């Protein structure tokens, strides 16, 4: 099939970007979206043009590197990662808009590549537990209710791709932070830091130029891992608990 792509081109963070049109021919419906971009880039290189910069790594839907706004929807028309989106989701002659994630917390590096280190900083302030190192402890010595372990595992499937921020009308990172807070807060191993974790992670999120959550739900609808809005309620529950307990983040 033949497609017209309108791609955001931006040379560096300081310059203004714009949408540029490209034509791609002979696209197989079995190609992934990223393979289709590879084909376009080979064409551009042959034409002595600058290839389009985009993030990608595992191409198996697990590493969270790829992430594009495709026709105004984070990761495109399927609820999956961009690398797992196939060209059979489009038809011959389609015009496809491709943009980077847009957020104050995710500055554009080049073209479709954004700097997502804000997520790393949110994890760094609270996404850990204190555990003794050495031999692995006997697993049965710390029982975890099945319901809690299931909910914690659902939250832990968050790969941190940033689609939630990209899709949110407020540009909020709440679903990401909530997934991390829920994941550790539900496990017995996560209890010692539970109050301090939610306070520091929410404070870091606010410091990163992300918006505030108004529970619209766009984030969960585009999340490739289907992280539920329940996690946001859980974060708020923990936050109110921590504030009531007068918890002070450990320095």
């Amino acid at each position, binding site marked *: 099939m033949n497609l017209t792509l*309108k791609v*955001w081109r931006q040379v560096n963070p300081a310059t203004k970007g714009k*949408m540029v049109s490209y034509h791609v021919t002979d696209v197989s419906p079995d190609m992934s979206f990223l393979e289709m971009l590879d084909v376009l880039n080979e064409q551009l290189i042959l034409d002595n043009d600058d290839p389009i910069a985009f993030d990608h790594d595992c191409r198996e839907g697990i590493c969270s590197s790829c992430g594009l*706004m495709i*026709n*105004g*929807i984070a990761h495109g028309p399927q609820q999956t990662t961009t690398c797992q989106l196939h060209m059979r989701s489009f038809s011959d002659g389609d015009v496809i*808009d491709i*943009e980077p994630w*847009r*957020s*104050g*917390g995710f500055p*554009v590096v080049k073209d479709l590549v954004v700097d997502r280190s804000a997520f790393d900083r949110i994890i760094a302030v609270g996404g850990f537990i204190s555990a003794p190192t050495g031999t692995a402890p006997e697993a049965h010595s710390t029982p975890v209710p099945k319901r809690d372990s299931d909910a914690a595992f659902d939250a832990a499937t968050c790969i941190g791709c940033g689609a939630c921020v990209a*899709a949110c*009308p*407020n*540009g*909020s990172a709440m679903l990401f932070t909530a997934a991390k807070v829920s994941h550790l807060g539900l496990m017995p191993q996560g209890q010692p830091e539970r109050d301090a974790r939610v306070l520091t992670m929410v404070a870091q999120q*606010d410091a990163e*130029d*992300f*918006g*505030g959550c*108004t*529970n*619209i*739900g*766009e984030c969960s*609808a*585009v999340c490739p891992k289907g992280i*539920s*809005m*329940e996690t*946001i*309620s*859980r*974060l*708020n*529950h*923990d*936050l*109110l608990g921590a504030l009531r307990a007068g918890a002070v983040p450990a320095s």
Partner: protein
Amino acid sequence: MAVSGIIMVLFLIAHMIGNLHVFQGAESFNDYSEWLRTFGEPALPPRTLLTVIEIVLVVSVLAHMWAAYSLWAQARRARPVAYVSKKRVQQSFASRTLRWGGTIILLFIIWHLLDMTFGAVNPQGTDSSPYDRLVASFQNIPITLFYVVALVLLGLHLRHGIWSATQTLGQTNKRRERSVNAIAIVFSTLLIAGYLVVPAAVAFGLVD
């Protein structure tokens, strides 16, 4: 946002039930209005109940507006460059109209106070009884339409607000999600219907 919203919802329930006195006739409605002013007398000074309600409501409205403004300002900072194309995936009409709806509701409240409380913009003028003011306003089609539009927006505001407040207070989970949304829809519809029967009754001549 959630706490100030809940306080205002409690007031809205009481206000809606109070309005229904209109169906018991002019005397009952005016007596109810008088009772609100003289509640607790002679143990309490006049207007004690009303003054307490007014203070609580003013504080709630200001807190709600401040929270809404902060969220709006934060959202603007959070997306300095707009998308060229952006599609909605699942957001409700109610969640999308929250900010403009809230602004229109604020303007409506100002009008409503000038109309029904002070009578300044009421066709009956300032020295009329509450019942006369109500009937006079709702016999005027443009005023009635404004009331209807504002109340429908208020209903949408509550439909999203009740769900959002439940989330903010950390009381939602996967199993409750559907029932919380169902309750939000049913409650908003019933509340707004309770308000709208009054102008409808005047417009159709059941109350005059």
